[in-house]
């Protein structure tokens, strides 16, 4: 399997994630979509690192994963917060601010 295949895989995952973000009604689902996108990036980085034989490609995902975790935590916190005040986690109900 060449680099190309990994890139394609990551692109597919990335697009799946994006698709999820756009289409899921549930905010939790959307968060999952985001995670998927970020993981696609990691696939990319690692693949490049592997094929180039460069260490940076492996270091980078470590940082990325750490940040992703922080983001996910924050995202879930916000969702919980939202559920407390709004009693819903459906994304399309959240259009108080508009126009």
């Amino acid at each position, binding site marked *: 399997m060449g680099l190309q295949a990994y890139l394609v895989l990551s692109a597919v995952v990335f697009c799946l994630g994006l698709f999820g973000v756009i289409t899921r009604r549930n905010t939790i689902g959307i968060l999952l979509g985001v995670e998927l996108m*970020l993981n696609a990036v990691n696939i990319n*980085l690692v693949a490049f690192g592997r094929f*180039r034989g460069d260490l940076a490609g492996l270091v980078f995902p470590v*940082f990325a994963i750490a940040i992703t975790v922080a983001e996910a935590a924050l995202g879930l916190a916000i969702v919980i917060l939202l559920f407390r005040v709004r009693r819903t986690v459906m994304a399309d109900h*959240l259009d108080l601010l508009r126009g």
Partner: protein
Amino acid sequence: MTGTLATTLAPEIGLFVLAVVVLLIGVIQRGDQKRVVGWITGIGLLGVLGSTLRLVEGGSVGDGMFVNDGLAIFAKQLLLGAGVISILGSLTLGHASFSRRSAEYHFALLASLLGMMALVSARDLLLFFVAFELMSIPLYVLTGFLKRDEATSEAALKFFLVGTVSAAFIVYGISFIYGVTGSTAIDTIPRALAEGQPLTWLGMGLMLVGLAFKIAAFPFHMWVPDVYEAATTPFVAWLAVAPKAAGFVAIIRLYVAGSSASDTWLPVIVALAGVTTVAGNLMAIPQRNIKRLLAYSGVAHIGYMLIGLAALSDSGVAMVLFYLVAYLFGNMGAFMVVEAVARSERSEGIDAYAGLAQRSPLLALAMLIFLLSLGGIPFVAGFWAKLYLFLAAAEKGLYGLVFLGAVLTVVALYYYLLVARRMYIDAPVCSDRVRVPGLLGAAIATCAAGVVGIGVYPAPWVDLVKRVASALF
């Protein structure tokens, strides 16, 4: 080496220490934290700002990952200055959560600031990404700071969602660039571009989307009005300036400065500038909430700055930096007035300004000055700013863009004048003065002084930004 490390990173280290101190206070002092944290943060920021004055241009750390060139120092001063003004405005915030969770607020703010400061100095994509996220994540927190408010949490979620998706775009783009160049150093990008690898283009495009989100260019601006409307005003004042400034510096580094292939970005930036200016101005017209209005007008201002960037020249960059300064004072000032009025009137609608000139003439005058500065009227900073931008674009021959921008200034003045009409022409609903807390007043006065000062005598600032920018090319 440690000496260089310390001197080069002095502001960042100072900021980090300050953040830790604030956090510790928050941990130790349970319950009502009052304003002491705010004061500490403010004074600390001033100290850090002072330390930036001693920074040496060209100092670098970590094999050139982190470089303090003129641009970076300038940007850091700008960011810190904006932070000070914002703190000044938020010191008197009356919300209960501000008394209880003051340390939390200030820590987040300082963390974000730290991210921005790292971002403007970053010369390595890894650092760049980390700094970018360090800047962004606290902003989501700060947006949702008033936890009990329905709108606030909604805005935080939207900001977060769009923000993380954009971050994903950025890092995805970074991965491609890394893949092509085999390095995370930013310096290698121009060469890769010159080679014409499509993946480089894809990567740069993806990154540009992420940055465009940060600076809120159309159509990546959509979080802006919602967040501005819902978040606390002093924070918004800062949010409207600092991350955008950082974002611009990043764009300048990646797409404009010293890049041999930079002219190839011209059509993109021109297109972004055009649509952003038009959309921002048009969408601001029907707004009835002053913060939303300022949000959209902010989008338009981003468009103007992009016009300057589109010149892809040292004078273009210089003028963008100048614009940022003018925008800092004008925009933050306007938001501070909004805060003052909102606190007294319990409304952020434009109607709340009816007859303000007769109730509090000075406050109205200050608002008028800020609006005029934003609108680009002589003798206040915004005029020179806009003019210089157009000048830079004209030098590049982008007369179409200049003309578009100049004409849209008229549209912008339309909605600014609608506010002016409320303040000056309409009759007041009640006659008592709007009470402005002293510190907030000081923030407003600072901004007004900045706006008028630059407006009357812009030469030193122009010289400064020109010097900073010319080093990049």
